[in-house]
Every structure is written in C-alpha cells, then in structure tokens.
C-alpha cells in the first residue's frame, strides 16, 4: 500500500528572460539550495533525486549526470524524466510516487529550463513526428491558435474575454517577487499587442523564461517529523493522449476533462467551484483560462467569460486562479508544471508571501503539454 506523502519544502529562482550570470547547473543549484533552506534540511537528508527539463532546449542530453554538481545528486539515486510541457507535473507526480512507495523517505524533485539558450520554437518542433507533423503544424502556437479559434467560433467568445484572463494573471504576477513579468497590463494593451497567430496576441501568451524549481516530498512519518504543516498529496491524475496533431479534438480538452472527472470522483468533489480553494493552472495562453475552466466543470461550456468578468477567479474571488501570476508571467518550461505544484503547496502551507489566498484547505495544480496532455495534483491541509 502506498504511504501518505507531504510536500515539506519548495524553492525557486528569480525567473528572468536571460540568466547569463549562471549556467544551467548553477541555476538548478539556486533552486535546490532554496528548497533545502525552506525545509530546514541539508543535502544529506535527501534520499533520491528526480530531475527534468525539455529535450533539445539546452542541447544537453544526459541532464541527470551533467547537473549533478548543482542538483546535489552526487552519489544518490537519480533519475531524469521528460514529457514535454508536462515535464514539471510529471516530475512532481514521480517524486510523489517515489516517496509513496516507501522506498525513499525524502525525495528532491527539480525542474528547470534555460529558454534563452535555444530557439524555443525550433526545439519544440523536434518533439513532433519527423515524417508527418514537423513540416507544418508543430511548435507551440499553431495548435493553440486552432484551439482558440475553434472555441471562439463555437461559443461566440470575444477576444476581450481572453484579454481579461491575461489581465488577471499579470495583476497577480505583480504580487510575486519570483515572477518574470511583474507589471500589470490593461485590456487595451492586450488587444493592441502584436498579433502572433490569430486570435493569439503577444500579451495573450507566456514569455520564455530562465528558471528552476525544486520541491521536497516526504513520506508521512518524515513529513510530520520535519514540517509543522506539510502540503499533503491527496490525489494525482494523468492523461496523455495523441501522437499526431491531427488526432486532437480542438473543440474540447478531453485529457483535462477525463483527469478532473477521475479526481473529483475519487475525492467526492461535487461542486469544484465551492470545494476547491485555489488553482494553479498550467495556462500557457489566455484563451485556455476560459475553455479549460469549462473542462474543469466550473461552469457550462461557453459560460466561462461570465466567471472571468465577475472576478470569480481573481484574488478575493470565490476560486482564485494563479495567485503566482501563472504561466503567462513565467514559463521556464521544464520547471513550469513543478512551479504550479510548489505554488499550490505554499498556499496550503500558508506561506505564499504577498500572494496568499486566505484559508486554503484544498489547492489544485495542473500540468499541460505534449499533444494536449493534462496532469493534476491535489494538495490539502490534512492528510487524506
């Protein structure tokens, strides 16, 4: 039987577009030291290390061995995982599995990226099938633009509705000293920003960031011993689906729908809008902040703009989204999913300085990537 697991520490870098002052290994080390300090541990307390980033983004293939000098994994069990955009959430779930197995008491999980070192779009294109998909549709923007335009056509959504989502996350990012983008923007600024691929404009989409995150998971006995308020892992759900981009149904995010239904069913959650207290959504662009909250069952399809304009997902609203500013303010891709987990953990631990949602009992973190994949981790104040 799996043992209960809690998050007992979280560290992250100050994310920037370029961190020329450090190499990748040194960037990783900043997050590792921050997490150890947060948990009050030394590297000797760590039993195993899980690390990951995007393939081809830094052109370093054996990242697990190359990064040992920074990760602290020297002479420890170590594994590298990479699953595209979901890398960070995969890492967190794998860290949970390692600790839940009972084979490792304290597990250090690291996600990182130096987007400044490569051509991000070029690197992402290498993820897709070389014979059928690479020449045309692959990369970050095409799929998202098709998803957004299909959603607009079906429900009569306005570009301003999506702009309001970007405005929310940029306002939240101003509260987070670690975020890359900390300046708020207006609806007009989003609408007037350069068009990248209709209907996605520059301020609708995430930046490219250099940054790293580290989260420490511990089995129940150690978690209670080492931490006065761990963020307990309640449940995880994973849905990874298609190979070719043409296989995806862009009118719905089936992976997220299936993952949340599994999680809600398992946890007995009937009214997620009321029962969840905060969500860190892996939301790489603003239109996802509309369509995907419908996939999460927070409202009926096509009704999300009302929730957004009413401020339901703002700080102070019924279910705040992305108090950290989310992916629209920071996207160091291999770290991004893990940042969602770390930020959700801070909310549960009541330690999200400057961006704390009051009285968080349940926090949901999501991951997104690949050909429309979805990961979830639900964290709670009490063990479940």
């Amino acid at each position, binding site marked *: 039987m799996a043992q209960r697991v809690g998050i007992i520490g979280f560290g992250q870098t100050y994310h920037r577009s*370029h*961190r*020329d*002052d*450090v*190499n990748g290994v*040194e960037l990783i*080390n900043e997050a*590792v*030291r921050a997490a*150890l300090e947060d948990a009050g541990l*030394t*590297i000797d307390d760590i039993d195993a290390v899980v690390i990951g980033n995007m393939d*081809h983004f*830094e*052109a370093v293939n054996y990242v697990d061995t190359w990064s*040992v*000098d*920074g990760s*602290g994994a*020297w002479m420890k069990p170590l594994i590298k995982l990479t699953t595209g955009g979901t890398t960070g959430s995969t890492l967190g779930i794998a860290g949970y599995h390692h600790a839940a197995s009972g084979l490792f008491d304290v597990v250090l999980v690291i996600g990182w990226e*130096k987007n*400044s*070192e*490569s*051509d991000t779009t*070029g*690197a992402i294109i*290498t993820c897709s099938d*070389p*014979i059928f998909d690479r020449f045309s549709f692959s990369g970050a923007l095409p799929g998202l633009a098709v998803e957004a335009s299909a959603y607009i056509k079906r429900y009569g959504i306005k570009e301003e509705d999506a702009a309001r989502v970007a405005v929310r996350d940029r306002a939240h990012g101003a509260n987070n000293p670690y975020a890359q983008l900390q300046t708020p923007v207006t609806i007009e600024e989003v609408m007037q920003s350069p068009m990248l691929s209709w209907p996605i404009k520059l301020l609708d989409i995430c930046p490219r960031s250099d940054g790293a995150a580290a989260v420490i998971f511990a089995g129940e006995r150690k978690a209670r011993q080492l931490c006065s308020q761990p963020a307990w892992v309640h449940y995880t759900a994973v849905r990874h689906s298609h190979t070719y981009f043409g296989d995806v149904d862009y009118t719905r995010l089936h992976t997220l729908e299936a993952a949340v239904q599994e999680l809600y069913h398992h946890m007995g959650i009937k009214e997620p809008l009321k029962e969840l207290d905060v969500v860190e959504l892996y939301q790489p662009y603003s239109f996802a902040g509309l369509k995907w909250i419908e996939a999460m069952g927070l409202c009926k399809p096509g009704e999300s703009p009302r929730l957004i304009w009413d401020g339901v997902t703002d700080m102070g609203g019924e279910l705040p989204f992305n108090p950290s500013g989310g992916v629209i303010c920071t996207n160091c891709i291999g770290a991004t999913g893990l940042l969602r987990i770390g930020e959700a953990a801070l909310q549960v631990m009541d330690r999200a300085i400057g961006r704390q949602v009051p009285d968080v009992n349940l926090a949901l973190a999501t991951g997104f990537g690949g050909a429309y994949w979805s990961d979830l981790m639900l964290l709670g104040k009490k063990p479940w």
Partner: protein
Amino acid sequence: MSRSAEENIIFDGRIRMPYKWAAGETSSYFLTQLRDHAKLWGTRCSVCQVIFIPPRKNCPRCVTADTTWVELPSRGVLQTFAVIYFSEPLLQPSEPPYIYGIVKLDGADTGLTHFLGEVAPGELRSGMRMEAVFKNKEDRSGLITDLLYFRPEGGSAS
C-alpha cells in the same frame, strides 16, 4: 493490414539549431583569467575544503555556494591519457592521431582534461610531470582551448 509497401522509404534528416550557452559568472571569470593572463583558477569549498577545476559556483558535494577562488599553477601530474586515431570532424576537429589526458594541477583535488602535445605516445607515463602551453596572447579568445595542451615539464620528455 493486407498491403505492404513496394519500397520502404527512408528519410535523411539532421537537426541543426542554434544554441547559446551562458558560461555564467564563475566560468566567465576562469575563462577571462585564462584569456588575459594565462592563469588557471579553481574554487575551494569552504565546508569540504575540496578544490575543483574547472571552478564550481557551488560545491558539488555539499551544494553550498560558500566557495572561494584559488589560483592554481599551470603544472601538475598526468593521471591518465589516451591516443585517438579516428576523427569526429563535426564536434572534435583535431586531426588524428592526437592525445588527450587528464592532468591534476598541483594543489587541485580534481583533474583537468586537455590535449597533450610535444610528446610521442610512447614517452607518456601516468604520474609524469606536465606543464601547460598557452596560445599567444593575441590569439586567446576566452575558450578552454586558449590553453593549447600540456607537455612534459621542461619541454620534451626525451
């Protein structure tokens, strides 16, 4: 599946993308000292006292960032070597045959990998004294290859 192809098509491909690797402040100091002064520097962990070259911003053993610079001499002991008879023109442009080895500079706790020169393979022995040969100052550009190679101390071994 009742049909198979009359021929199996094979695609040639090559992933060719631009990268920029930031050396970071620590390695940049090492490389600029090499470029401007032909000096080799390592770092010492204030906790473990281990001296590393190439330098590390944080200690690889205890992960502390409490490290200090140590100037190392450009001479030391050959730990091991290998003679290369094949070429890898894209990534390792040296003309074979050539020799590379690991030299532990005096005072350092880790070895430095580099080429060995001015010596025939048969003259090399692990444990022999080696010294660094640098490019002329005007040719140095902040690369690890500003150090040309290590040769037997005092010149040729023979």
